[in-house]
């Protein structure tokens, strides 16, 4: 049963050891440690002994329910409506606080609601902030992964030409990657500033003053979008370089053959370039997905998760709870959930992009 890995391969193992050792020390062991912590009530600092609490950390994070609200009726049984004709509902807190009739909703908060007929369905969760940060993270990944990968590919195609001074462009596109993300975030905070930000000024100039200045990061509707745009811009250069490396492995002979056959530009791209980039595409997509799930620095510097939790993310919550609120077990629980999430998605991506 001796395989190549075990027979007279001491040198091989020796070379692999530093890498394996570091990965084990800083990634594998901390993961198992986090999993262990998520089953306890460990605090960052506390004189109280650590106790096993089973799955209650997971229960606190994940408990979710749907509460059906009947509209308020007057004595005659007609629905009370407000000035806009919408039915009025009892407050959610009358069900979730000190109400012995609804023990299943105790301590829950409203996440969102929708109408069905005259009743309102309210989704309530014990930890609404966690659900919001999960949803924000997913939105971020869903937008950033395809847009950033696509934009990076366009840039790579543009700079994959033999032109005078092309290296200057390559350097310019790559520059944001080299600058620290904290610095970039601070700069963009100025760009987005509601008072005298560059973005507002530029848009006003371009539209001859029709554009109303906005509070980009202070408005829940635009905050996450603003951070997406900035994040895409910041890391696009890195993925451009990976695409570029992929492009340069495609043999020039294939392009010559295509031009002899009379292929159009689009056909060349579709049938020569794109198939040649297959492995690069898988790599870029998986890397961007993982990076997007780890969104933290931009949030920490630019919005602190606000306004109204519209930009809070899983990693931000992990740090906020584990370190800020000294709740290491709570932070560990989120990071375990995040790990399982990223693992699942990476496996799905691998499956969908497998060699057929």
């Amino acid at each position: 049963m001796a395989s190549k890995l075990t027979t007279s391969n001491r040198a091989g193992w020796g070379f692999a050891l530093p890498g394996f050792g570091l990965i084990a020390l800083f990634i594998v062991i901390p993961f198992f440690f986090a999993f262990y912590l998520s089953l306890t009530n460990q605090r960052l600092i506390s004189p109280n002994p650590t106790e096993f609490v089973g799955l209650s950390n997971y229960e606190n994070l994940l408990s979710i329910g749907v509460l059906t609200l009947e509209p308020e009726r007057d004595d005659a049984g007609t629905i009370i409506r407000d000035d806009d004709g919408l039915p009025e509902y009892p407050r959610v807190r009358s069900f979730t606080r000190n109400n012995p009739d609804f023990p299943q909703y105790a301590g829950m908060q409203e996440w969102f609601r929708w109408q069905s007929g005259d009743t309102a369905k309210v989704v309530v969760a014990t930890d609404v902030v966690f659900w919001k940060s999960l949803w924000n993270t997913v939105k971020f990944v869903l937008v950033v992964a395809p847009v950033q990968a696509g934009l990076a590919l366009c840039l790579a195609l543009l700079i994959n030409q033999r032109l005078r001074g092309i290296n200057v462009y390559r350097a310019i596109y790559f520059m944001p990657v080299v600058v620290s993300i904290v610095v970039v975030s601070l700069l963009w905070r100025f760009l987005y500033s509601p008072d005298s930000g560059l973005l507002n000024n530029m848009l006003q100039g371009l539209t001859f003053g029709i554009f109303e200045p906005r509070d980009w990061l202070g408005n829940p509707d635009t905050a996450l979008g603003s951070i997406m745009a900035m994040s895409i811009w910041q890391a696009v250069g890195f993925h451009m370089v990976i695409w570029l490396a992929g492009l340069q492995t495609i043999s020039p002979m294939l392009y010559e053959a295509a031009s002899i056959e009379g292929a159009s530009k689009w056909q060349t791209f579709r049938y020569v370039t794109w198939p040649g980039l297959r492995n690069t595409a898988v790599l870029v997509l998986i890397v961007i997905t993982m990076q997007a799930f780890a969104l933290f620095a931009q949030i920490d510097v630019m919005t602190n998760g606000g306004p109204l939790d519209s930009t809070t993310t899983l990693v931000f919550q992990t740090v906020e709870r584990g370190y800020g609120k000294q709740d290491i077990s709570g932070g560990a629980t989120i990071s375990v959930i995040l790990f399982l999430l990223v693992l699942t998605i990476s496996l799905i991506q691998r499956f969908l992009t497998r060699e057929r």
Partner: protein
Amino acid sequence: MKMRTTLGAALLATTGWATMAAAQTELSMWYHGAGNPQEAEVLNHIVADFNASQSDWNVVVESFPQESYNDSVVAAALAGNLPDIIDVDGPVMPNWAWSGYLQPLQIDESTIENFLPGPKGYWDGELYSIGLWDAAVALVTRQSILDDLGLRTPTLEEPWTLEEFNAALDAAKESGNFEYALDLGMAWTGEWYPYSFSPFLQSFGGDLVDRDTYQTAEGVLNGEEAMAFGDWWQGLFANDLAPGTSQDPAARETGFQDGKYAFSWNGNWAAMNIMNTFEDTVFLPAPDFGNGPKIGAASWQFGVSSASEHPDGASAFIEFALQDEYLAAFSNAIGLIPPTTSSAQMTENYQDGGPMAVFYDLTEAQAMVRPVTPGYVVQAKVFEKALADIANGADVADTLDAAVDEINADIERNAGYGHTE
């Protein structure tokens, strides 16, 4: 021959120096003020004086930037590397004392009997930390603004009421001379929120946590008074009276001087710059929202770590630093409020008739410490988020309920934080 004598003298001198140093036991000290040369100069001066004044102890200071100071102490405590003397932010002290980072000071209480209450750090009936200064917050404006708007100048004896304060803000808004009536400093995230805004809540009659037991926030942070505070707070932003959470930090620093705001809720550390800009700057006391006017108390303080093998020496240093001349030196260097009347008289700014003496009176009359509990660290974070959310338009009752739940869950997870009846 001459050469030899010099050498001998030098040898003698070095050995003499070495034995003297060896006789002094070294005490390490951590300080949060790295990057501030004036502050470092005063501290180094005190340390040098102390080291020269006796032959038992030799204090060595290591400074950290304020942003990473608390993290460094926590990390050092986890790793068992705490120095002998640490400085600690007043409201955080109970957490560190409860966690076992600090030991009670061995200081004769008579030395501090004349101190303002804010700088004295008591936990569980024992003195754990003592501050060389305090800080205060005031409503900064100009006499000319008050006159233009036709407003009464409030005094310590007769501060503005809620109605008067609201009327003042409305008048400033209607005058059209300002971008916003009131600059609260929403750009300063972090401890500024609980430090400077929780006194509003307390003046309304609410609080972060029930101070009788420190076991619950129910009814205190989401009671009627707190709801009234929340509604008022939300109104400030909904009615465009104050810039919200996305206030530009630069506007916070210089906005008042640039004439953007009629009033600025700001600390004594910013007072010098404003006074230099406007000759008619006035510092108004906090309004009385119904339960007495309040401002926050307690700033950075000195304590002795539990890891110290020489708490007597560490305490001796702290006691040494409490002399009036050093209290005055800190105040002169960085504008902080000296903690005793006698030291205040030795400063340029806080002596009777001094330009900032009003802050001393404010502290004496209105100051209230933040909840003295190890759970404060978490409660401050929860409160900060609740204030930001309400300012951004979140439902007041739901937000305060959520804050109460989070605070109570945290207290429960920490087995009541060691408060005993």
